[in-house]
């Protein structure tokens, strides 16, 4: 009997070694990154692959203070009236097929982005009249109106430079030949993207000989894959949930890192209908809501209480003026029930449901019933438009790094997400700030706008997002920047 058990044990171990033994790649120059979504964007997209893959680059990029910094464009200048911008293309930049990048290639890529609505969703180029290659290394943009922040509008996703021969007549990208530090080896949609270092890359050399991005949609599975050593890092927006942080910190082989990103979580009042069409109710609510407590309880280490309506990373235009004071309850609350609207798609990443429940309890304390309505993304957008809600919570990323992007989207009377609060003076300030070429005068205009927001409170910023990411100690040099992009070269973010 004893022999049988021992034999069975040995047999079992042998079988397990033969059939099941699993270990991650031991190649130190290969980095495997787990991300929560598919980085393959498709042929009919701006850039074929997500920017985080480091396979393509734009004309400019945004630094940690969301200022435009050189990328494919080495430098730029504008005419005094801000209606013409000339970008000087860097010398020695090569496509992945080792052909040099010319200013005509750059102009062709920008023209592609401008020509199709899908590739310029935010309308960054709507003021552009023409883009042309000039001389040997210049690309010239002519604009309808002054754009003091134009280099920011051309950053990153707004201007992926793709080899023109890879662009079909209908704007689709047939294959990705671009300029990034890594080039594509294999794409398995929904599963993985395999890349290898591009030796002719113009910038700092790639850190790894091979990089694999694996799509692991489930947050728990991602962490387990990291713990098991199947992947070396977990990155991207919302890749690690705040409640997973302590588990990672305790693990001896893992390092938890964080970076403040350009996302701010906003509480939006529906100012079209009572009660929040009245300033006194908005002011009371904003003062009654303990935002610092919300951040410390729900965002854990992944948030900073917001004093600006957009990210303070944009430090030239961050004034820290939103500090609502507590005010007495105005009474005469006419609405039977307050509807708190949430987007289902955001609940997995952020604790909006818990925040909404706190708000529900807070309102109950004042004798006001509140209902939380969770809808899928399409219905959420529809409800925001038709106004069947009182309060909504959603993230907002200042993609261009310029405050005009925020004001033109949320605050201006004709803004696509204006929720009912309209003010002619504010509209004028927004217009003036948008076209003001003098930086100090522009700052002053945005300070005045921030004062308006802090006084009228059409929305309340809850907290600025701090994105968590993690890596194994063997990949401790792994970093992510403010645009969620992993840095895979020797250059530090």
């Amino acid at each position: 009997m004893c022999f049988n058990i021992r034999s069975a044990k040995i047999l079992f171990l042998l079988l397990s070694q033969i059939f099941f033994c699993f270990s991650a790649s031991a190649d130190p120059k290969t980095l495997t990154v787990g991300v929560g979504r598919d980085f393959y964007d498709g042929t009919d997209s701006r850039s074929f692959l997500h920017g985080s893959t480091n396979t393509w680059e734009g004309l400019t990029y945004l630094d940690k203070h969301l200022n435009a910094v050189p990328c494919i464009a080495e430098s730029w200048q504008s005419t005094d009236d801000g209606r013409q911008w000339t970008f000087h293309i860097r010398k020695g930049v090569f496509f992945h097929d080792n052909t040099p990048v010319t200013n005509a290639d750059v102009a062709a890529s920008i023209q592609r982005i401008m020509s199709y609505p899908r590739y310029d969703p935010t309308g960054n180029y709507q003021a552009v009249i023409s883009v042309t290659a000039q001389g040997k290394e210049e690309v010239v943009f002519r604009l309808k109106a002054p754009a003091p922040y134009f280099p920011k509008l051309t950053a990153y996703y707004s201007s992926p430079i793709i080899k023109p021969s890879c662009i079909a007549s209908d704007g689709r990208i047939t294959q990705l030949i671009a300029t990034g530090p890594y080039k594509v080896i294999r794409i398995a949609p929904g599963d993985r993207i395999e890349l290898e270092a591009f030796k002719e890359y113009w910038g700092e050399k790639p850190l790894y000989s091979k990089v694999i991005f694996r799509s692991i949609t489930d947050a728990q599975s991602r962490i387990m894959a990291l713990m098991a050593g199947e992947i070396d890092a977990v990155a991207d927006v919302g890749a690690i949930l705040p409640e997973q942080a302590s588990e990672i910190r305790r693990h001896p082989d893992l390092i938890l890192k964080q970076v403040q990103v350009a996302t701010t979580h906003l509480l939006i009042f529906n100012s079209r209908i009572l009660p929040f069409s009245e300033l006194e109710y908005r002011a009371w609510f904003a003062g009654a809501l303990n935002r610092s407590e919300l951040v410390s309880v729900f965002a854990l280490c992944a948030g900073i209480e917001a004093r600006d309506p957009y990210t303070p990373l944009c430090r030239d235009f961050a004034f820290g003026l939103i500090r609502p004071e507590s005010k007495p309850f105005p009474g005469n609350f006419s609405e039977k029930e307050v509807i708190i609207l949430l987007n289902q798609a955001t609940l997995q990443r952020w604790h909006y449901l818990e925040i909404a429940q706190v708000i529900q309890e807070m309102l109950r304390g004042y004798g006001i019933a509140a209902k939380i309505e969770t809808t899928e993304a399409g219905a959420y957008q529809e409800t925001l438009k038709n106004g069947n809600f009182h309060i909504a919570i959603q993230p907002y990323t200042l993609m261009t790094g310029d405050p005009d992007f925020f004001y033109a989207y949320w605050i201006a009377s004709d803004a696509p997400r204006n929720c009912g609060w309209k003010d002619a003076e504010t509209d004028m300030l927004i217009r003036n700030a948008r076209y003001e070429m003098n930086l100090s005068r522009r700052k002053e205009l945005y300070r005045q706008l921030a004062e308006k927001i802090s006084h009228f409170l059409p929305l309340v910023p809850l907290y600025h997002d701090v994105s968590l990411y993690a890596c194994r100690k063997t990949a401790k040099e792994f970093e992510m920047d403010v645009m969620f992009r992993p840095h895979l070269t020797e250059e530090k973010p």
Partner: protein
Amino acid sequence: MENYLKKQAKRYFPLKESIRLGITLFGVSLLTFLMLEFVPGDAAEMILSSHNDAVSAEKIAALRKELGLDSPLPIRYLNWLRRAVSLDLGNSFRTGDPVSREILNSLPTTLTLAFFTFLFAVVVSVAGGIVSAMFQNRLPDKCHRLWTIIAVSVPDYWLGLILMLIFSLKLHWVPVAGGTGFRAFILPVLTLGLSVSASEGRVFRASILEILSQDYVLFAYSKGLTRIKVFIRYMFKAAVIPMISMWGMLLGHLLGGAVIVESVFSLPGLGKLAADAVLNRDMPMIQGTVLTMTFFFIITSRIMDVIYFMLIPQYRKT
């Protein structure tokens, strides 16, 4: 005359079945199209805001036009149907890639997962059902019943994570997520198969117990045949027959993809493709995946009909 009618029926059987299949697919496609139409939200806006972009109203309108979403519903449906008849399911709104290609790419994963899960479920449910029925109300039966209740009650998501924790994280036997080769399918098959085999096992047990009380079985025992002989000669086939339609349904269901298991184990199958399409309001992809699932379901049920036809003489006569 009777022979002539039988021959004619045989000759026209494939044609009749094809027409039936076509009508079903048409009905499903029309229903899906209508349902998508009444879901709130704008597909163009969702595509443009896929990167958390603050999209402009002009761009949304322009994309709606480009995708043909501004045309009336009947025109859009007829355009889609015209292409679908020639097996062109259109391009994905999200990626711009042909829907049929994306579905074909996801099929190997789904077929592998479905095949092995089906095999696992059939073997385990048959074995469990037999043991449980033959030892009715004794310890093996009680254990099996308890096991089936537990297996059916445990959610797939939780079970998947627990199996992952034990076999991937602690023992390092199988990969946590994704991976290549058969090893990548071991945990997904177990996760999906355990609950399925438990419920099927209970039905199989009930089927055997019903047959145990039949006169011909009692007669066989009275002739002095052993339990095993009686089971193999008289009971097994009779007990399996009612299971065939259930297995057909199970296979059809599995071929439609398993959203939760595919998501937990990062398997790029049909279920995940369909779920992503729904989340992204990718209409052509939703249509394509729903049609594929329907097709598999109908085909498996027809295959089961054929098996019935072969196994049961009475069925053949009717």
